[in-house]
């Protein structure tokens, strides 16, 4: 049995498409088997809602009168520095940027109450944002200073463009040292006091299409409550990571660069986030539909938490010092039970990525497709898969004489 995306889109337009979430598909396949389910189900929706640091937005603020060229100058949004090394009024704000006067970790652990991620959330929510900028002035762009409120509804473009989101699997973070540490995986208590993980597991987009057979460049997705697209493979895309027989990776592997119109996104799916002792970030909601074009794809989407494994990594020494070797592997079923065993010790687990919100995203996307509001796209190019041989490299430092 095979279906094309065009056939699925015809069904969506006619309103007789069958869509289920990546959680619901598990029981359906168990009941009816792969062959029958592949005939009935057309689309499986996935979702994830977690902190994703490589996220940001570019904005064209419109030309001021008289004109100012921010390129080569400096600019801030609500006191958070934004990048302006582009043309006159294009700026980019990354979610981890902080106001210059934030004490950071000088008062340890820093609180990181407000950064780029929070500005993005407020901007999407329609709040006025304070823009301050200085420039050097040219004959055609004479102005040197600008201070104004800007609002998302007035700017020319506001585009969310995230160079790396939707990690295919992630580490389980623990702390082997004897002091409390603060990481991007949350606070980790000494002596294996807790284990934090960050993936929606069986609902996570790239774990449901582990070999990137349907998700590719140009795939239309749910992004931050609006519609977005996969722009490219994400940075650090590592398709050659170790895999299980079911195709899922048992380490952080594939990633996606995603893009979409920020103006139609919603603040509840783009949340400014603060990691104590670490910094600010953005919690991003992403949902990806997987067209059931054949039985093989269906089998991937029916993957269960108990068949997806994540490596346990020590964040006190191994991670910061880049020492190889995990402390073992655990399934998401074990992680979600609330405790795992590491080095013979029972360790309580905590997730960083919201499973209930991931389910909500998969449900919203399901409704959009059922209502005929969201058609699927055929990727224009594939993401590099395991056959590409692509791996991710460490920096080779060379001394500067």
């Amino acid at each position, binding site marked *: 049995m095979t279906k094309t995306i065009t056939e699925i889109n015809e069904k969506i337009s006619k309103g007789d498409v069958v869509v289920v979430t990546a959680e619901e598909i598990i029981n359906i396949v168990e009941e009816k088997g792969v062959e029958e389910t592949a005939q009935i189900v057309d689309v499986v929706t996935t979702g994830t809602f977690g902190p994703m640091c490589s996220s940001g937005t570019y904005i064209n603020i419109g030309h001021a009168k008289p004109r100012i060229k921010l390129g080569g100058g400096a600019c801030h949004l609500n006191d958070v520095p934004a990048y302006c090394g582009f043309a006159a009024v294009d700026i980019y704000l990354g979610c981890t940027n902080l106001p210059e006067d934030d004490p950071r970790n000088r008062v340890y652990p820093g609180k990181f109450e407000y950064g780029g991620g929070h500005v993005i959330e407020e901007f999407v929510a329609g709040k006025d944002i304070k823009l301050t900028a200085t420039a050097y002035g040219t004959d055609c762009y004479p102005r040197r200073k600008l201070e104004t409120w800007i609002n998302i509804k007035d700017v020319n473009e506001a585009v969310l463009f995230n160079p790396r989101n939707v990690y295919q699997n992630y580490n389980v973070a623990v702390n082997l040292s004897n002091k409390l540490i603060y990481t991007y995986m949350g606070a980790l208590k000494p002596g294996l006091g807790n284990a934090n993980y960050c993936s929606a597991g069986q609902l996570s987009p790239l774990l449901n299409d582990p070999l990137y057979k349907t998700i590719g460049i140009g795939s239309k997705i749910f992004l931050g409550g609006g519609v977005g697209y996969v722009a490219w493979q994400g940075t650090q895309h590592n398709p050659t990571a170790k895999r299980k027989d079911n195709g899922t990776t048992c380490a952080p592997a594939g990633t996606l660069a995603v893009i979409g119109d920020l103006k139609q996104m919603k603040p509840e799916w783009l949340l400014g986030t603060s990691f104590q002792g670490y910094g600010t*970030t953005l919690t991003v909601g992403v949902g990806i539909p997987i067209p059931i074009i054949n039985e093989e794809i269906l089998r991937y989407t029916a993957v269960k938490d108990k068949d997806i494994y994540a490596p346990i990594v020590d964040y006190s020494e191994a991670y910061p010092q880049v020492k190889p070797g995990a402390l073992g592997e655990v399934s998401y079923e074990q992680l979600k039970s609330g405790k795992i065993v590491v080095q013979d010790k029972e360790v309580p687990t905590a997730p960083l990525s919201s499973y209930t919100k991931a389910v909500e995203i998969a449900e919203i996307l399901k409704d959009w497709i059922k209502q005929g509001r969201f058609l699927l796209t055929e990727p224009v190019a594939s993401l590099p898969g395991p056959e590409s041989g692509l791996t991710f490299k460490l920096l080779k430092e060379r001394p500067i004489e």
Partner: protein
Amino acid sequence: MISKRIVLKFPHRLVDQPIVCNLAKYFDLEFNILKAYIIPKEEGLLILGLSGEEENYNKGINYLKKLGVIVQSLSQGIIRNSTRCTHCGVCITVCPTEALVLDTHTRKVHFYENKCIACELCIPACPLRAMEVHY
């Protein structure tokens, strides 16, 4: 018997008086101090577990109120902002008393206010700043 956790706010004129001892002395109440911030010449804040016979308990609370102490139940002190909470679960291993617990079935995080001892560890640990102090 009645046993409650309460937040007391003292105006600065009362800060150096043995009010809490009087609760034991005159009203036969048992107290357990969970937290105290007292800045001389300014206001003081005390978080107490207070227990005793219901009649005595009510009399004790009235005594405090008459003196001008503001009495608040602890469950009104540490609050979860439900519109910001994503049920991510980061807080569950941070909370020392299991007042924040992840339901393994619904995957939602419950906040059991009666177990909260106002240690405030969850306040900076919650990445969404959904846990708030209101006293």
